[in-house]
């Protein structure tokens, strides 16, 4: 379950920002998650809840949006929604994006 690793890294970053701002509490967190990371958001929230107990981020709400990869043939430009290496035209299919995990916004009570 790699969600625990992501939850831990998320918590570390959020706590750092909350402490920098001398916040009393973290209320909400907005994240952007790449589809190719195959993160289960429910599991991520579950893990975050478990490890954020007794921290500034306890009970913080997590809102997630997914970002998809851009997969297209270098030669003919055809787009794909499945991972494939070579297009029917013989061109190489490039995969860009879809692997980010970004904190977009944090709401703090100060």
């Amino acid at each position, binding site marked *: 379950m790699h969600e625990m690793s992501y939850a831990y890294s998320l918590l570390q970053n959020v706590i750092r*920002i909350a402490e920098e701002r001398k916040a009393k509490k973290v209320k909400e967190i907005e994240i952007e998650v790449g589809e190719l990371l195959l993160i289960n958001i429910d599991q991520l929230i579950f893990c975050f809840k478990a490890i954020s107990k007794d921290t500034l981020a306890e009970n913080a709400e997590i809102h997630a949006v997914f970002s998809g990869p851009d997969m297209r043939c270098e030669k003919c430009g055809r787009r794909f929604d499945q991972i494939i*290496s070579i297009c029917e035209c013989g061109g190489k299919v490039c995969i860009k994006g879809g692997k980010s995990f970004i904190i977009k916004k944090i709401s703090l009570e100060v």
Partner: protein
Amino acid sequence: MYKRGKELYNKKDFFGGVIMHKIDIEAEIDVLTENKRFAKDNRRFFNENEIIAINIMGAVGSGKTTLIEKTILAIKNKELGKELKVGAILGDVFGDSDFKRVSKHSVIAEPLNTGKECHLDAHILNHTLHQRIDEFKNIDLLLIENVGNLICPSDFDLGETYRVVIVSVTEGEDVIEKHPLTFVNADVIIINKVTLANLVDVDVEKMVRDAKKINSKAKIIKMDLKDGIGIEEWINFLRSVLDVSCNTS
């Protein structure tokens, strides 16, 4: 609640005398930055010390430890043309059985227990390397056995030089097709235990086709580590990537 710019005030508290001040921080923080930083650090260490580091990924029982053992034996038998200094880091959630198997071959080996994590990351690898940095910096080849898991390890760049994914036919002939993200960035895809294919009703050629469809650049090796099939091809791959200027013992 009302909004003023990016700051929110709780009206009741505001007029009640106690201001509950809420601020929104617009951020663009890459949560994976830490891993990327350590991966870069590991990569620099490997480059500076002319070490080829191979991240071996695969499910439990796919043959990762046996591949490491056979590789060490082949190097000791000078099948690469010269004897190289080999190091191994054996990742597991718990226990040291793989470490014991590999350390019998008199190489610089270190166990790496992740505790709860289903994969290695660059930070934990960095930490393990630093425990015996003076010994690891003198090796030519580092074999890193990732935690037995076909999915999670592929997300985490360790700073390795090459990525190898090993699957066995006993995992089913659809195993590659079902896990495209694991194979898309592999440099070598090994299909192990091919002599068992008939017994488990698996078409090895279908697995090869799936691998090629997902990753046309990877070297695909049909292998059976117990019967010695495909090991020569694997050794040829190592020969092609190990620089001649590597330190020899």
